[in-house]
């Protein structure tokens, strides 16, 4: 398969994730869509790594996976804290820090 196929597929997945982040309101689903975007980035990184025949892009993708895991842990911790304080699980109602 040509590398460009993988890049276009990664663009598709990234845009689906971006649309999800902008339209959904549940923070759980927004976190899932962020995962989609990060994974699209990973796919592009690995495709480019294959293109130039260098393993460094795969290391980059591995670090992105670590960052994604950290983001999930903190995000889910915030959601659990919101639930504990009986706050609505809805990003539109949590607009206190809006600039």
């Amino acid at each position, binding site marked *: 398969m*040509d590398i460009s196929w993988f890049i276009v597929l990664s663009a598709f*997945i990234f845009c689906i994730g971006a*649309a999800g982040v*902008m339209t*959904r309101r549940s923070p759980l689903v927004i976190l899932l869509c962020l995962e*989609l975007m990060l994974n699209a980035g990973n796919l592009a990184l690995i495709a480019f790594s294959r293109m130039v025949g260098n393993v460094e892009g795969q290391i980059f993708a591995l670090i992105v996976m670590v960052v994604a*895991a950290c983001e999930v842990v903190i995000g889910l911790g915030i959601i659990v804290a919101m639930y504990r304080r009986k706050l609505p699980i809805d990003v539109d109602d949590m607009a206190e820090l809006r600039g």
Partner: protein
Amino acid sequence: MFFEQLLFFIAGGGAIAGAVGVVLLRNPFFSVLALVAHLISLAVLFLLLTAAFLAAAQVVVYAGAVMVLYVFVVAYVGGSDDELRPETAGPLAAIGPIFAAALLIELVIAVVGSGLSLLDSTGAKVGDDFGSPAAIGDALLTKFLLPFEAASFLLLIAAVGAVVLARKRRGLHEPADAISVADVLRSEPPAGSQKEAIG
């Protein structure tokens, strides 16, 4: 070659179907399951790109560990039982998909019109051990030692942060909810106790 293309279209279709499912499904639990299917399809694509170690890590770490965390939180918070209002009403709701479509068109134009001649090839010639655990480990522990250590430190910070966020909070002077044995012992003695009798 034909087998490779067939595998690409099966896995790519699975990945896109999973992604669309994550966005469109109403129940967060089904969204999580769609994301698991998406991640496994991506692992197949990683294998096609000869990234064997990352494909394994994707299945074990992502589809295994991280998604279990999601399932637990969805079960705890309670999913979609209280769908309060219809999802995103108003003119803002239409802007998101339009923006995403514009972004997609722009990205596709960028890929198609790119001057990278290697994009239309199957990639550089690589040996059998490209992307193997040995090659990844070698790069991680020699050239990329500092990012590797920074990643481990980041994971530690995230773990501590999760504990701080999820712990039960109490005010400084608020009495504890539960009465412990020590509280019962420390309470005032009833009238006519031993001390008065002696005095």
